[in-house]
């Protein structure tokens, strides 16, 4: 065997690097979050063991192999020795030990997230501060989802690993008609949702049909729905949930998705997962300019900022639909699998 193969064989023979995970994923919940997707792909690569010990914080009790660390002091449940652990939630920052895991991943600024409880925001802030001042052991690999988060924890160089998309999304058959259609997917809540932008785009006159998935029951959303119904009538459709297969059936040449986020520190700390999802589906996107992932070419985006002219939306919709070949290439480059491979190579360098 040549040197490269021998090294790979040695790595394989050495077994998984990580066999325990501390995160926010509640047992039995869906597996669509960044930590869940990354761990699943890392398991497929043999980096995380097939049955890792799991520790979750939150209200859900221990079950299905996942132990509950509770809500008040989740960091206390971490063991003293954290080699071979992955800490994927900053809430474990209630304990300084959390920064000494083999792999720490940070995504979205939980210390200012409007949907995170105040105590956990404090823990997250301490965690980030600790990482920044390097309470992390020299053996800890730290990755982040965005340049903001990388700066927040003092990362330099290669530590940014953006979000991704499941490969299967790229091969879903689009079967939507040629209607000018706007799709907006929840969650919607104050502090993240730009209700004004939402209303402006939906009532711009550019769309014959507006479909809102998972609108939720927040009061501002109810008010918005009421207002939109008055303007759009039957052209407004709400659905409790739209999975990717259903979205594909709605995606046509003049279908666009709107990401109606406010531009603030919290949303800037995110790497919009929906962007990857919609582009993989072959759907063009209307998005606040500053929130567009900087490493992605905005060729199929309509970026909105101060002075934006929504009057050109019909022209834009009529132009340049996304070819399947582009979708396939995009998914290949930005899949969760490719992200996991990146983390694997970073872990190998770290060793």
């Amino acid at each position, binding site marked *: 065997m040549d040197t490269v193969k021998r090294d790979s064989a040695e790595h394989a023979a050495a077994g998984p690097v990580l066999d325990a995970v501390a995160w926010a994923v509640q047992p039995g919940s869906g597996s669509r979050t960044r930590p869940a997707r990354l761990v699943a792909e890392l398991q497929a690569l043999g980096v995380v063991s097939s049955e890792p010990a799991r520790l979750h914080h939150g209200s859900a009790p221990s079950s299905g192999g996942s132990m509950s660390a509770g809500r008040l002091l989740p960091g206390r449940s971490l063991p003293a020795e954290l080699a071979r652990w992955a800490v994927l939630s900053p809430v474990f920052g209630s304990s300084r030990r959390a920064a000494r895991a083999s792999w720490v991943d940070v995504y979205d*600024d939980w210390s*200012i997230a409007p949907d995170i409880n105040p105590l956990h925001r404090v823990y997250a802030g301490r965690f980030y501060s600790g990482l920044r*001042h*390097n*309470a992390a052991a*020299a053996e800890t690999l730290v990755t982040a989802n965005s*340049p*903001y988060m990388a*700066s*927040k924890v*003092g990362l*330099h160089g290669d530590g940014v690993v953006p979000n991704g998309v499941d490969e299967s999304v790229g091969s879903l058959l689009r079967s939507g008609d040629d209607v000018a259609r706007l799709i907006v997917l929840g969650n919607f809540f104050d502090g993240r949702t730009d209700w004004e932008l939402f209303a402006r785009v939906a009532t711009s006159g550019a769309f014959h049909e507006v479909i809102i998935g998972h609108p939720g029951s927040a009061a501002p959303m109810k008010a918005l729905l009421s207002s939109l119904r008055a303007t759009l009538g039957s052209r407004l459709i709400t659905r409790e949930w739209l999975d990717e297969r259903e979205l594909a059936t709605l995606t046509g040449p003049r279908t666009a998705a709107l990401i109606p986020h*406010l*531009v*603030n*520190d919290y949303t*800037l*700390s995110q790497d919009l997962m929906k962007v990857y999802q919609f582009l993989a589906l072959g759907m063009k996107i209307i998005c606040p*300019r*500053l929130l567009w992932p900087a490493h992605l070419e*905005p060729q199929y*985006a*309509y*970026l*909105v*900022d*101060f*002075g*934006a*002219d929504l009057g*050109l*939306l019909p*022209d*834009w919709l009529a*132009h340049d639909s996304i070819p399947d070949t582009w979708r396939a290439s995009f998914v290949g480059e930005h899949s969760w699998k490719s992200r996991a491979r990146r983390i694997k190579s970073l872990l190998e360098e770290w060793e």
Partner: protein
Amino acid sequence: MRVDLTMVLYRPDMAELGRTLDSLAEDPDQFGLLWLLLSGSDDQRRQLEELLVSAGLAEVCRVTHRFDNIGFASGHNRLLAQAFGDGADAALVLNPDTRVAPDALRELADAVEADDRVALYGPTILRAGTDATVADSMGIGWTADGRHFDVGQGELARVDAGLIVTVDGVTGACLFVPERTYAKLLRDTGWFFDDTFIAYREDAELGVRASLVGVPSRLVHLEGFEHVRSVRGFTRGATLPDLLGVRNRLLIRHRLGRHRPGRWGLDRFRDAIVTAAVYLQERSSLPGLRQARAIRRFSTQTSSTRGRVRVGDAPLRVLYLGIEDPTYPRNARIRRFLEEEIGADVTIVGIDKGPGAIRKAAILIRQGLRPARGSFQVVILGEFQVKYGLIAKLVARYHGARLVVDWFVGLYETRVEDWEMARPGSPRARVWRWLDQSAARAGDVVLTDTDERAKMLVADFGVSPERVTVLPVGAPSWARPAPLAERHGGTLRVLYYGGYLPLHGVPYILRSIARARSVLRIEAVFIGGGERRAAAESLSRELGLVDRVQFVDSVPEAQLAGEIAKADVVLGVFGSSPKASSVIANKVWQGLSSGRVVITRESKALSEISGLVPGLLVTVDPEEGQALADALDAIGEEPTGICDPSARLEAYVAERYGRLAVQLSSGESP
């Protein structure tokens, strides 16, 4: 030189654009390709193409069409990337209402080539459509309250053909960018224009950011460039420009931090005035104000300039706090390096060696805060001053400077472990320990002198390894080998010099001399003074060494070379504390560099240099009572030859200092 043009068109005035394209068409050979980004409708695209055909520029034009508006900054960033990716040697960022006369661009390019710098360039720009020669922009300037303006706008233009001067910035209406400058700004700051800005003020921000990485903005005096300019100077009344102006003023503050031009206080006052005016009078700008605040963390955290130390033409200004003795090798060497290698301007705040920590703290505070805010870019806390770590932090903050803490010697290891002034765990010991840790954690850069001590700082105090820089003590220039004197009467001459610190293990040295059974007569000279010298002399008498050990008072450093030259062996340190096992003492460096055999206690730190001094470094375990005596015996039996490791040792030290230079020059905060 192939100079491409880049132009961003947003709701363009087609008539004005047509005039600009016609002016370019008068001398199309002076540029390569014209890269256009149009934000507009299909109809506007058609109109643009007609104008290009009409001007005869269609073949040399590359159009990117978008329906949304990505802004001036993002737009030109994309176009510049395309132009340089296509092989342009330079690019001229051009507004659609800026005219370029025949041959003017060629002259500008020639002037840039002759100037031959990594810089941003811009020509003197006159106002279009005036009979007299009225200036539109002679570079960007800044007011004391943090507003930028086009120098000379509206005044009679004084164009001194051939003159090139450095200015604070160049207007984005006509900005000449050599490829090497573009590449450097991308590499050193992450981007060309900061596209958080959308439009307005990004050229002013660029000028400041560029200067921080040693890229000046240069104004080239020549004629041939005219600007129509729809938004002029400090006038208000256009909703979107006003909103973006407010937003971007705050963005500049968040992005540049202490580097924002202006006098501190006045600029903040102006910020307050602008904010109040928005709330009271110009509520149409409120969304801009709100967004600037909403993205403040993002703007500051992802800034590529806030933590920077300015490099380039201006010398680095350093404040060195707490120097007790400017001739002490540690600070002397660091200062010499800063002044001679980096060209820094070093100001010392000295303190005496007498008692009175509070009195000396007051000196440091008073003298550190007396100069105007921002007077220094780097504050260094000198050796032996860790107790003033938080004061140094205060002074550094005041100046917006990076703090370098020379964590050379800790309080706890000296006072508790060496001098036993308090019991471990006692309240005083805990305070000293806390001061040690605070100083270590306060520094943006933490210096120490060996890799072992660096590991200790990381492991014991939680300092980030990236912040720690090892600067070995090294040897002064006088420490060079001199020929060994012939031995008289079979005498081995042994030299100790120092302050009789517990670290040195003087009692152990004396007992070892007494125990040695060398074939040679061992004669020792002890140079120096200190609290424990009297005890050492008493022990020497007790051991019957009076005729073999000579005690001499301290000598000037210049004389030390002579004393070392007379010795066969130089003694290092033999204390038993953790500190003793982690340092490489001054005298060890000096003795080795002088080509002498040095005997010192075992230490992991010595592995850094042992390979550089074959045959000269002898280590012993001071826990073994006979070890030093045996070592002296062994040396006595072997002739010692001359050896000159000084160059190797110096190269080792220089390489380590080089890392400090990189850290200070890159100006990156950890």
